[in-house]
């Protein structure tokens, strides 16, 4: 409570950067799935949870080193996402509210299935000793692992940007996002684009999960903690990559500053009220593409 001097402000800003990177990493898969495919994926939190569990599985049963678990989780969760898209989501593309409900059902099923297989007791991910140390620069104190998360987030954002704006597949994705029918008439297989984008978004959630499993303990319910926050980032950002990067950064920093002045929970409440008021002025979010009525 109380005053905020320069030192603690800088500390809060650095911590805010770390919070922002976590929220952005949780939100980026969701942004892609919403922005391109138009699906509100309520099972996103469970994709994150699956990422953490697949890392746990690979680490404790196959002895995979942690750094290799991250890309492996991407592959595993992307494959699960692919199956869910082909088996369920693709039938619901023209019913946005129903995709929301169906993915809720998916989230319940995934959570319970994991609970039946692994039990409800917490699991832990082991990391190299270097990652669990702390870094001290002047008065700023930050754990090395949080810096790893920031680096991975930056890498994921850069990679996604490259994929979407510098490759042939990315051009197809953007064409389908702008106008599905027109793109299809130019010979782009829209159904395939949707399928791969959904799998990509799920895979990115898997990456997030393998990192969040270290930040927190691994539990079947761990996804729910991230999903609401991730949605707020997507809604505030307007569903574009750039929007999510800015929204994630802004909300993370604000959360950290508010928390430094009051406390964590109250900061979250305040941040949420701000987002509601913001949406009142700009319902389309920070950087929304010009809306097309379909």
């Amino acid at each position: 409570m109380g005053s905020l001097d320069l030192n603690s402000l800088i500390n809060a800003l650095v911590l805010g950067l770390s919070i922002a990177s976590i929220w952005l990493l949780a939100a980026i898969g969701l942004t892609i799935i919403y922005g391109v495919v138009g699906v509100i994926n309520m099972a996103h939190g469970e994709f994150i949870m699956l990422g953490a569990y697949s890392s746990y599985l690979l680490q404790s049963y196959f002895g995979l080193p942690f750094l290799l678990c991250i890309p492996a989780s991407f592959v595993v969760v992307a494959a699960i996402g692919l199956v869910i898209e082909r088996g369920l989501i693709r039938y619901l593309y023209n019913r946005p509210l129903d995709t929301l409900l169906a993915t809720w059902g998916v989230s319940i099923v995934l959570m319970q299935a994991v609970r039946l297989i692994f039990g409800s007791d917490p699991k832990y991910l082991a990391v190299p000793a270097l990652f669990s140390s702390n870094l001290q620069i002047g008065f700023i104190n930050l754990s090395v692992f949080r810096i790893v998360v920031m680096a991975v987030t930056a890498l994921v954002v850069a990679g996604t940007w490259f994929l979407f704006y510098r490759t042939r597949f990315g051009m197809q994705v953007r064409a389908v996002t702008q106008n599905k029918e027109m793109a299809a008439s130019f010979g782009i297989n829209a159904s395939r684009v949707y399928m791969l984008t959904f799998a990509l978004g799920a895979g990115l959630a898997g990456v997030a999960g393998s990192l969040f499993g270290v930040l927190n303990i691994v539990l079947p319910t761990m996804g729910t903690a991230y999903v609401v926050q991730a949605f707020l980032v997507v809604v505030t950002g307007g569903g574009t990559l750039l929007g999510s990067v800015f929204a994630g950064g802004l909300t993370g920093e604000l959360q950290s500053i508010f928390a430094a002045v009051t406390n964590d929970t109250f900061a979250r409440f305040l941040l949420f009220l701000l987002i509601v008021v913001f949406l009142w002025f700009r319902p389309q979010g920070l950087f929304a593409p010009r809306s097309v009525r379909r």
Partner: protein
Amino acid sequence: MNLYHNKLAQWAAYGVFFAIIAAVPLFVSDSFLLNQLGTYGVYGLLALSISLCWGFGGILNLGQGIAFGLAAYGMAMTMQMQTQDPESNPIPPFMLNNSLEQLPALWEPFWSTGLGITLALVVPTLFYVIFGNLMFRARVSGPFFAIMSLAMLSALFTIILDMQPYTNGANGITPPQPLTILGTPLDPYGPATYWLVCGLLIALTVGAKLLTQSKFGLLVQAVRGDAERVRFLGYNVAAYETAIYALSGFIAAVAGCCWVILVQYVSPAQLDVSFSVTMVIWAGIGGRLSLLGSMLGAFIIQGGQSYLGDALLSTWLLGLGAFFIIVVRFLPKGLAGLLEMGLGALSSGRRPKQLEPADRANAMAGE
């Protein structure tokens, strides 16, 4: 004509349903069971409120726990203050444990039972009016509104959990004695309380059913169909959306009050996200376009949960989730839609095909 869309047949079905639930205490002598059946009335009220908001208004509300929880807290505070004495013992025990020396101003109005219950109903409804107005005027709709209501719910959940000295945090409030109205205590295990809940359920269901058949109800359904067209016809869409949303919030608030009367307990669990989503699942499986279907959905699912689920909760939830996916994928109108199809197949066998458009018009006017 499809019997399902026949208004007389619909009212007959509602009548049978009311008669059955009202007669329950005549056959159930186990007071514990009666109390549990009373809580099903609360689930029925919640399913009714979701059906009204989502089924008829097209507003998917994943945060119905807001009204339910706020009202439950209001009622619990009222009941708690009934057991306190202004002179000798003015502060509830948990506040003393949290080293509060004075009753917070937030709690002062709850000395009066009448004012307390009024607040328990008015505050959530007003909250819905303000929140709904903010959202709908900004034309936040569909999935986005669902997310915002969900986020609002989790924000409230954390703040109630955090305000330990005022709300007793995760432990919740457990009023030591049942609610006393006009000098008589309302035994939560007695038939009188059951009939109170049952009576409220019947009255609100009849009101909601009449509302859906009125001009207002027709307009709300038109907004569900295509909000843009209704706006171009000159109606204030946001006002209609706010009205149906606030109305459903009021019903959920009544449910919250009944809940605390029955179980004498409230905790942040009532504002848990998963409970609010469960309400949507009741209506989704039962049939959101039918008030009665949604309520029966709540009874079936909650009944299944308490009788099958206790032993194998994870398997039950797994099955429920899978079943919900199947309903969303193949039966968007839920089990009530299945009945509609069945009755439709029966009547189309006897009737010439030309009557179909009339059927569809009826379907839009009624359920």
